[in-house]
C-alpha cells in the first residue's frame, strides 16, 4: 500500500496558499476538519474560494475564516446562523454562490467521478437557473450543472488507515466522501489513525486512492449547534 501519513495539520496544509480553491467537509459543525481549520487560521492566507455546505458559526468552523477575512467566495447551500457572514455578504465584501444542497453534492460527486456535467430538476424556473442551460427530458425540464474539482479538499473522518482509507461515523459523513474524491489534493484528518489491515475492506467509505495526505487530529471539540434533548 502507498503510505499517506503526514505529521500533523500544519504539515498537511503547508502548501495551501492564498487564492486556493478549497472544499471543506461537514454539515453545520458536524464532521468539519477542525484541525485543518486551525492550521489554516494560523497560516493567515486569504482570497480563498471555499465550497462547503454551510459557513460555520461566528466563533467556530469557517466562521473563523470569515472573521479574519480569509475568504473571497463561499459556495454553499445554507448560510444562516452566522452574523458576520451576513454582514460581509450584504456589504459586498464576500462573494456568495448559493446552490441547492443536492446540486452542490452532485457537482462535487461529478467532479471526482470525471463527469463534466449532468442534469437536475432542482432550481428549474428559479434564480439558480440563471445563465444555465435548461433542457427537457421526457417532457420535464432540467438544468445542466457543471462539476467542481478543488485544489485541496479538507475532510474529516472517524477512522483512517495509513493508506488513506476512511470510515465516517453517523451524520458526520455528509459531504466528506464526495469532497475527498473531488480534490486534486485531498487531506484527511481522522480521530484515530490505524495501521493498514485494521479496517474491514467491506466497510471503507472512502477508498485510499482519493486521499493524498492523512493525519490524526490533535483534539476534536465537536461543538453542537442545537443540543436538543428528550426529557
Amino acid at each position, binding site marked *: 500500500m502507498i503510505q499517506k501519513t503526514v505529521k500533523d495539520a500544519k504539515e498537511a496544509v503547508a502548501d495551501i496558499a492564498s487564492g486556493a480553491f478549497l472544499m471543506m467537509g461537514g454539515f453545520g459543525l458536524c464532521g468539519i476538519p477542525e484541525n485543518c481549520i486551525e492550521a489554516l487560521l494560523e497560516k493567515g492566507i486569504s482570497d480563498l474560494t471555499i465550497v462547503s455546505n454551510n459557513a460555520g458559526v461566528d466563533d467556530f468552523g469557517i466562521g473563523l475564516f470569515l472573521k479574519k477575512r480569509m475568504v473571497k467566495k463561499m459556495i454553499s447551500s445554507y448560510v444562516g446562523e452566522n452574523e458576520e457572514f451576513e454582514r460581509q455578504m*450584504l456589504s459586498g465584501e464576500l462573494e456568495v454562490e448559493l446552490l441547492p444542497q443536492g446540486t452542490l453534492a452532485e457537482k462535487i460527486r461529478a467532479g471526482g467521478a470525471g463527469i463534466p456535467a449532468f442534469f437536475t*430538476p*432542482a432550481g428549474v424556473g428559479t434564480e439558480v437557473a440563471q445563465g444555465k442551460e435548461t433542457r427537457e427530458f421526457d417532457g420535464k425540464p432540467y438544468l445542466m450543472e457543471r462539476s467542481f474539482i478543488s485544489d485541496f479538499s479538507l475532510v474529516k473522518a472517524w477512522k483512517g488507515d495509513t493508506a488513506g482509507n476512511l470510515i465516517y461515523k453517523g451524520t458526520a459523513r455528509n459531504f466528506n466522501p464526495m469532497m475527498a474524491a473531488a480534490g486534486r489534493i485531498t487531506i484527511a484528518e481522522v480521530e484515530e489513525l490505524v495501521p493498514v489491515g485494521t479496517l474491514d475492506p467491506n466497510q471503507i467509505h472512502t477508498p485510499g486512492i482519493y486521499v493524498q495526505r492523512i493525519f490524526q487530529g490533535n483534539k476534536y471539540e465537536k461543538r453542537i449547534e442545537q443540543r436538543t434533548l428528550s426529557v
Partner: protein
Amino acid sequence: MLTKEQIAQRIAQEVKHGQYINLGIGIPTLVANYIPRELDVVLQSENGLLGIGPFPYESEVDADVINAGKQTITMLPGSAIFDSAESFAMIRGGHVHLTILGAMEVSEHGDIANWKVPGKMVKGMGGAMDLVASAKMIIVAMQHCSKDGHFKLLPSCTLPITGVRCVKKIVSDLAVIEIAPEGGFILKERAPGVSVEEIKSKTAGKLLILDKVPEMQFN
C-alpha cells in the same frame, strides 16, 4: 385558528403507511409527534440518515448524530447512514414519497417561495429546491397571513421562488387547501370556528370553493 401543533397534527393525517418522509425545519418537524403509531413510516434527514428517532436523553447525546436542523437526535433500529450525494439521489430519484416544508409564499399554481427575501435575508435554499423539484407529494405548513397581515397565498409569488408548480397541498392555521391542476386554491377544510369568509378575505390568490367546506377533524 390552529396552533403550530395543530397544524402539525392535521398534516399528520395525510401520512400513509409505508411512506418515506422528509420533514423540513419548524412546524414540519413537529409532524413526527402526531403520526399514528400503527403506521410504519421512515423519516429521512437530508444530511444523511433514514430512520430519525426521538431527541436523545442527556447521556445519549452524540455530536455526530444530528438532523438537517442541526439538532441532536437518535437513530432507530433499522436506520441507515449515507453521504449527501446519496441522500439527494434518494430525494431526486423520487424515493422519498412525501415532503413537508414551510413557506413564506405559495402561488395559486403551486409555486413556492421560502429561501430568500432580497436585501433582507438570504440564508440559502438548503435542500428545499431539490425536495420540491422531486417529491411526488409536497405539503406546505404555513401561517395563512404574515404577522403584519400580508397575504401569503398569492396569484403569483413576489419573493424569489424555490420551485415551480410543485406544492400539492397547504395546511395553514386557517385552512386545508389543495392546488388545482389548472390553478387556484381549492378550499377543502376550515379550522374549527373559522368561516369561509375569513379565509376568503385572507387569501389573495383565486380561492375555489367547489363544495361544502367542513371543519377539520382532530381525534
